[in-house]
């Protein structure tokens, strides 16, 4: 059940009414409703994997309790490692087994041996990387005595499987979400309206921008040989906007949906394409994953406390792991590696925390320096996305070599002028709203009611006009 499908719209309306009109008197009933609807939502993808999800929830729930009850450090460690190894084991089997098997076979064949790797023909359970990371953060926090385990299975289960975040995040923390699940929630008009507005903006980004960009990005990436260098540049740019609008659009819908139920989820995007350096980009892109890696990998590895060498090593580790988290393909690892390389100057010169505030705060336009910094960061990001999007390392290299061919200055074959104008308008709106949670969050106070309503209708009609076959969200595959 995709967020951009009619089925989800009906599902959301039904759950909303049951939540606020039938179960609203009792928190326990509200949570049971959220749990049942979340399981139903997940089963609509593939009911068989519901058992895997429930098993993963049960495992972390019980190991969490067992860790807290452990009388000795040894037992605590045992329960901790049991949870970690089973969770990562599932992730390894479903997501990475074939990658390791075929990579091993390739490596051995270079030594002159021929091995036919035994691979699994399994489908990747949707959302496994996300809910596994939810569970891991919970277990690690209990192990480190940061939180106490939850004794109510329903509450814990809702924390992991709450349907807006179940399949593609944001990756929540127990300290942030669990207290909200355990607390009585009352309907808040302005929050609900804000939720609807964020859903609308997310759908606009997904259906109107991302899906249209996908069409042209796919044309070039899937048939590279047929296009000029200039079309390759456009293809990479279209993918850059596609992945941003696809994933941040998804996150907007998730956050808006959760707000309709009185729950605030972690922010996942903060206008990353206006970043002045790569360090800032990573504080603004997929924030819940970046902060997860920072808290549960970078800091335990020593973070930036152990001198320059340790900082460099740890930075490379988190970016490579982050790349690998996205999928079992060398292209993701190289994408991670490139980002680690990009961030190195700011790590070495200790400028990685230079740009903490929003760009051009209090001004309409950036300074020339800011403008060129944004442009450079954006260019580097576009280049890295080529690896992320390509089917293989060889395809990415071929794509790049075509960009730098003599046809770079030829007239591009793809010239979707309306889409380019739309992207420019979209970026202007994003720029104007860059201080907000999402671009149109402040429309309520900035625009008079009639203009606001015209804006909402324009967005809805644009969505209806462009909606075609339901397009999956890119991050569902991770």
């Amino acid at each position: 059940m995709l967020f951009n499908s009619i089925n989800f719209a009906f599902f959301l309306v039904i759950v909303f009414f049951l939540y606020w009109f039938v179960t609203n008197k009792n928190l326990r009933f509200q949570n049971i409703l959220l749990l049942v609807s979340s399981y139903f939502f997940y089963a609509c993808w593939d009911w068989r994997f519901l058992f895997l999800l429930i098993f993963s929830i049960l495992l972390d729930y019980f190991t969490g309790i067992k860790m807290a009850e452990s009388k000795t450090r040894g037992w605590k460690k045992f329960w901790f490692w049991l949870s970690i190894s089973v969770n990562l084991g599932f992730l390894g089997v479903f997501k990475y087994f074939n990658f390791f098997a075929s990579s091993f076979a390739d490596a051995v064949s270079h030594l002159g041996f021929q091995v036919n790797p035994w691979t699994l023909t399994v489908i990747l359970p949707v959302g496994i990387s996300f809910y596994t990371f939810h569970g891991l953060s919970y277990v690690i926090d209990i192990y480190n005595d940061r939180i106490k385990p939850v004794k109510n299975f329903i509450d814990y289960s809702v924390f992991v499987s709450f349907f807006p975040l179940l399949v593609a995040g944001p990756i929540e923390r127990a300290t942030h979400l669990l207290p909200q699940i355990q607390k009585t929630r009352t309907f808040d008009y302005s929050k609900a309206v804000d939720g609807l507005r964020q859903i609308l903006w997310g759908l606009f980004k997904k259906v109107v921008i991302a899906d249209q960009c996908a069409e042209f990005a796919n044309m070039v990436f899937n048939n590279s040989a047929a296009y000029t260098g200039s079309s390759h540049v456009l293809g990479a740019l279209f993918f850059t906007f596609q992945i941003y609008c696809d994933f941040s659009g998804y996150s907007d819908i998730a956050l808006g949906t959760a707000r309709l139920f009185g729950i605030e989820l972690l922010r996942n995007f903060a206008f990353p394409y206006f970043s002045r350096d790569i360090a800032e980009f990573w504080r603004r892109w997929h924030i819940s994953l970046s902060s997860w890696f920072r808290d549960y990998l970078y800091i335990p590895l020593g973070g930036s406390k152990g001198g320059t060498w340790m900082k460099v090593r740890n930075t490379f580790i988190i970016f490579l792991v982050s790349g690998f988290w996205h999928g079992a393909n060398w292209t993701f690892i190289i994408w991670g590696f490139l980002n680690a390389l990009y961030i190195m100057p700011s790590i070495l010169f200790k400028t990685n925390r230079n740009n903490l505030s929003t760009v051009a705060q209090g001004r309409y336009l950036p300074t020339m320096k800011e403008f060129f910094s944004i442009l450079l960061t954006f260019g580097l990001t576009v280049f890295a996305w080529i690896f992320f999007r390509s089917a293989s390392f060889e395809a990415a290299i071929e794509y790049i070599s075509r960009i730098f061919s003599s046809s770079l200055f030829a007239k591009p074959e793809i010239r979707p002028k309306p889409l380019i104008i739309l992207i420019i308008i979209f970026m202007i709106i994003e720029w104007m709203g860059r201080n907000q949670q999402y671009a149109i969050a402040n429309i309520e106070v900035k625009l008079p009611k009639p203009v606001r309503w015209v804006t909402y209708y324009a967005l809805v009609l644009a969505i209806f006009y462009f909606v075609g076959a339901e397009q999956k969200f890119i991050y569902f595959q991770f």
Partner: protein
Amino acid sequence: MKKFLLLILTFSIILVLIILVGILLPTTPRASKSLLFSKIHKDSLLQNVKSTRLIFIGGSNLSFGLNSKMIRDSLGVYPINTSVHLSIGLIYMLDNTLPYIRSGDTVIVSPEYNQFFGTFGYGGTELLRTIMDIDYTQLRKLRAKQWLNIFKFIPNYALSKLDPNEYFAKVDDNDIYGADSFNEYGDAYKHWNLEKQDYPPDEPIIEPFNYSVLNELYIFKQKLEAKGAVLYITFPGTESTSFDNNKNQISKVEMELKKKGFSLLGSPERYKIPDAMTFNSSYHLIKKGVDYRTSLLISDIRKLL
């Protein structure tokens, strides 16, 4: 909460009104020149052709992949190619043809493999446009499943009528997807003098097999036989790479058709078309591919006669 519900209600009512205006507007000049309007000519062929008839039903694998004149010259029967677009859905194609069937007709259905998976067979946006733009009285003939499938396209359809391009943009007379891009038998022919275009091959079909579409085909067969006509199923001419990407799904279709006892013309493998003979999608063929596929079909039909 009351305020919130009132807000939603007001917003929705205005939205529905805008959509209703779009629906009620007459068919746009641009839409009336689309290939969907070839249905009028095809229906008149079904109504008026008197001689021994060979009726083809399917999606664009037939409209962009058949040379009916070759069949007429070889077999001496009058072919009627009723096919227009895959997204009209197999169920509507069957329902639309059935009233025109007469005793002695031979009907050959060549469904794209997608028709048997997910909800493809129930039709999509092209079904909605065919009905709303050409003959809205057919709305009441649609099944619930078809309604559910096309419902989501209504806003898009309505808003397209508010698009100025639909009224003022010039329509290319040589458009291969135009209402007049079909010959007297119903074959699309304007692409026959064009070269192969580049396009990505089909990804594997991931939707589950839809047994209800298969059952509808079986019911159609029974109704045909009751009218004194006969039904054969053949397979779409499919680009080799896309075929290989969907090998398991194609085998499943063949196996289920055999299990139901349909009379099959050839096998999926036989209608696997070399990549170089396809035009701009895995089911659309260049002239060489059209003739190749038609010659295979002729030899398969000849075995029956």
